[in-house]
Structures are given as C-alpha cells and as structure tokens.
C-alpha cells in the first residue's frame, strides 16, 4: 500500500519520513511534489517537517496555498488518514484541517532535544499500538511549537478525547518544566473531529532505529499501517 510524503520546497524531513515508512512491511512510500495537483492512489498522507517556505511570515502560512494542498484537504475530508509532523502540523492548522495555531516557543529559542510525551488516547488510527498513559521519548526540533487555541476550542479538544499527546516528565507528570514550548494544556499533538487527521510537533520518524536512540516512534507508524491493512481487508 502506498503512503504519500509531501515535499514542499523547504521540507527537510521528507526523506526521514520516507525512510521510517520504508521500514514497515507492506508499505511503499512515495513523494509528492508541492506543485502536484493529485495524490494519486495513496492510503495515507504525511506532511513532513522542515521550513516549507522558509517559514517566513508564519510557519505553514504560505505552504497551505501549495497546489497539492487542495488534494490533501479533499483526501482528509473524505476520511483519509493524514499526519502532519512539526512543520506539517503547522501547515494543517493554517489550512484549517486542525483547530488552533502554533506560535513561537515561550523561550523565544529554537528547541531541539528529546522530550517525553504521554499518550493520551489510543482511539486514533495513529496510536492503537500504544497504551494509554504510556510515556514516549521522542525528539523535538522547532521554534514555533507553542500550541494556542481559544478556551472553547481547548475545552472541546479535552471533552472529545482529541488531545493525542502531551508533554510530560519521564513518569508521566505534567509539570511546567516538562513543557518545552509553553503549549496550552501541554499539547504535543491533536486530532480533528473525525480523528483521521493528526498533527504533532515531536518527530516520531526520528525515533525508529536503535542505532540512533530510543525507538518509541515506531508505534505510530505501525498503528497507521495496521489501521490501513485492517481497512483494506474488511
């Protein structure tokens, strides 16, 4: 089964996502160029990290107008699974596929280091392989990852089990020190109402090979693959 990885001109995690997908049995990753207008026959879409258009103005603001984004929106609205990682998350928010916005880190500095995130829900196509409350060790690398939304929106995300990951300590506590960027409600990742669009700031694709450190990102890709194969056989 094919999974598309979108390459915007300034994407720089596209190859990393490609590689992580390649490690999955039965998955064929394929790049799609931002100027393409169709996704083709793919089962899921990944919007990778990077600096899509230099992140000038606001991260993701210009990328959302890329020709390929119409196809991505259509795909998402039809229920297709879409994952936006880091810059991809920012693009999804700008495109209106996810609520809220990602603003500058509270420290005003780019933050690049491994963090702990707690899995808040396994009721998504992206987290079924994890356990609720499980704490993952995964790198972040962003300057604008501070999730912000109106209080009503946050309440809705909370009330509908749509917060997927929160920054936490190693033992799952939500302390201010464990929040690397000032995100509201410690949010590291959310899904849309239909639970088929995930946006997250940490980089699971950087945590899939033993040589490079912890492999806690694998579960996300495996969950997605399992979801897709289950869908394909039913």
């Amino acid at each position, binding site marked *: 089964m094919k999974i598309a990885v979108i390459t915007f001109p300034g994407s720089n995690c596209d190859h990393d996502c490609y590689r992580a997908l390649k490690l999955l049995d039965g998955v064929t990753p394929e790049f799609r160029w931002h100027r393409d207008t169709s996704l083709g026959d793919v089962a899921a879409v990944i919007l990778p990290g990077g600096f899509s258009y230099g992140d000038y103005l*606001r991260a993701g603001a210009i990328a959302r107008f890329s020709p390929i984004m119409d196809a991505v929106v259509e795909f998402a609205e039809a229920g297709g699974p879409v994952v936006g990682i880091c810059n991809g998350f920012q693009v999804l928010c700008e495109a209106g596929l996810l609520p*809220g*916005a990602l*603003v500058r880190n509270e420290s*005003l500095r780019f933050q690049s280091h491994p963090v702990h995130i707690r899995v808040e829900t396994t009721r998504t196509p992206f987290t079924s392989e994890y356990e609720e409350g499980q704490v993952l060790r995964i790198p972040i690398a962003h300057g604008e990852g*501070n999730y912000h939304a*109106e209080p009503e929106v946050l309440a809705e995300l909370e009330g509908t089990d749509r917060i997927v990951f929160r920054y936490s300590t190693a033992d799952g506590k939500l302390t201010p020190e464990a929040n690397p960027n*000032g995100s509201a409600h410690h949010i590291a990742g959310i899904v849309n109402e239909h639970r088929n669009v995930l946006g997250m700031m940490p980089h699971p694709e950087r945590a899939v090979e033993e040589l490079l450190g912890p492999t806690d990102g694998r579960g996300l890709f495996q969950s997605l693959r399992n979801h897709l194969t289950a869908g394909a056989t039913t």
Partner: protein
Amino acid sequence: MSRFTVEVRVTPRPGLLDPEGKAVQHALGSLGYEGVVSTRVGKLIVVEMEADGEKEARARAEEMCRKLLANPVTQDFRIRVSAQAEGVDER
C-alpha cells in the same frame, strides 16, 4: 492606476501571550527605563501596490490579510493606506 503604500500592522491578539513583547519589556527595564507600562511586538508589512484608488487598495489589503498576512486565531491586523510611494516620515 496609481501607486499606494499599504502598511499592515499585525499584532498578537490581546490575551495571547506575547513572549517577545515580554522579553523586550524586561530588557528595557534592565536598561533602566522606568515607566514602561507594556510592550507588544508585532509585524509590519509594507506593500506597495498599484490600484484604482485608495478604497480598492484598502479592500485588497484586507483580503490579503484575511487570506495570508494574519492568522485570525492569534493575530489582529490594522491597515493604513497612503497615496505616496513612501510614507511620510513622522520623526
């Protein structure tokens, strides 16, 4: 067609944390400036455009803001249009 200078001022919405403003405020304090009550930091986008009149220039600028230049979730914008190629220096 004449030329207009459109100044778009994009500022963080009230209530939204403005870490950059806070940092500048803090720095001003440490530099010994007293009486600084608040500091906000936003963006200034200066667009020169050809348009049929001030009204049209403003209308287009508003559309640009809504579409691209400002994010309504986090930012407010204000627009100033002047007919000159360069805004008057108000120093």
